[in-house]
């Protein structure tokens, strides 16, 4: 009996691994990836009773497990730092990545519920298929309003395509933070920027 159960468990485990394999092996196309993740998350927002009730812990969990694995925070931080990135020590870089990630997760998790009833329309991918940096375009349609374009900047990594920028209605997150980071670095250096990010994150808790 016990042997049977273990065998069944083993088989089930194998099946899960095999299901996951084609995705990892075939390197899902960037636009397919964004669309899949967006639809998955929207499905959770629509159906998960805890998310609907505003359970913060569950919302964080959804973000951590479904969204964040698809972001490349190191690249995002490097882009936002611009030429200052090379001036930072590895230790400073690590702190910057952690703090920037925390800031983004905290501020944008509140916006998650707004995706509930949005109609997302993904555009076909244009440009060079061999590129390692692409932009996936989508449009959010709201009745009676000008549609909002939401674009995702993606970079090819060893573990598939990862988002390194989000551009809402033409406003690139990375470009916006580059100005802010530059300003902080000019007045207090890289350590000053890290301190500002830390205290911002403390304040938001």
């Amino acid at each position, binding site marked *: 009996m016990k042997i049977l159960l273990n065998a069944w468990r083993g088989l089930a485990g194998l099946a899960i691994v095999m299901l996951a394999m084609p995705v990892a092996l075939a390197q899902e196309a960037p636009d397919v990836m964004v669309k899949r993740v967006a639809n998955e998350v929207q499905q959770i927002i629509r159906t998960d009773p805890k998310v609907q009730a505003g359970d913060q812990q569950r919302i964080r969990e959804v973000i951590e497990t479904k969204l964040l694995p698809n972001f490349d925070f190191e690249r995002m931080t490097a882009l936002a730092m611009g030429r200052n990135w090379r001036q930072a020590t590895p230790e400073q870089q690590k702190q910057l990545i952690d703090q920037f990630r925390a800031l983004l997760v905290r501020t944008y998790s509140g916006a998650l519920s707004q995706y509930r009833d949005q109609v997302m329309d993904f555009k076909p991918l244009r440009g060079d298929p061999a590129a390692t940096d692409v932009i996936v375009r989508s449009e959010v349609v709201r009745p*009676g309003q000008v549609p909002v374009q939401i674009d995702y900047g993606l970079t090819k990594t060893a573990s598939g395509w990862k988002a390194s920028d989000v551009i809402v209605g*033409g406003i*690139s997150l990375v*470009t*916006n933070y580059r*100005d802010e980071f530059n*300003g902080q670095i000019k007045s207090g250096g890289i350590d000053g920027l890290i301190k500002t990010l830390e205290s911002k994150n403390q304040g938001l808790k």
Partner: protein
Amino acid sequence: MTAQPSFTPAIRHLLVMGSVVATLALSGCATTGGGRTDDPFEPVNRAMYAINDPIDKYVFKPIAQAYVDYVPPIIRTGINNYFNNIDDLFSVVNGLLQGKLDKAGNDMGRVMLNTFPGILGLIDVASDLGIPRGNEDFGQTFGFWGIPQGPYLFVPLFGPTTVRDGTGFVLRVLWSPTTEIPDVAVRNVIYGLGGLDVRAQALGTTSLISEASLDPYTFVRRAYLQRRQYLVYDGNPPPLKDDE
């Protein structure tokens, strides 16, 4: 008792022409300023931002919040539709000025549908029929024809703008059909509602800014300038260099 309109048509046109000339002149000299080229008046702008912040926080934001909380959605939607319809009318004009005939035609159809069957714009019939809103304005037309944006400006009670966009906004106000309403009181109520509508639409944005930004002034400036650049290029702006 007839109320006087505040500007006679002749004076209005003079003001318009004057503001266009001023834009061209100011935009031209903007690129030679020291420091940040897009914000040569940063110290003044920051002071204006600092003045605006508490006024907005303690006066305009609560009023807009009360408007959203107590006025039924159907009335707020009607008011929003009314102003959108006027924006659409200007979108027709600016689409034409940029030779974007498809867009202008679309917007013209919207204005016709919403003004007549839609009762002066109160009902957005066109959106129900699936006609998308264009989004052209005078600032974009100036940009399309190569006029530089000029210095960034932060105007208290109005918000972020540039010399180019601010001039466009002045034109829009001076030429708005609302100025033709002879009764000053009615006209002022409509202007007031317009301001309220704009502020109410932005309620979500302002709380995001305070959470997401390290320095709200810088954050607003970059977001505004990025957004305008994007609109001028109809969604395909040239990429920025790494350190811009």
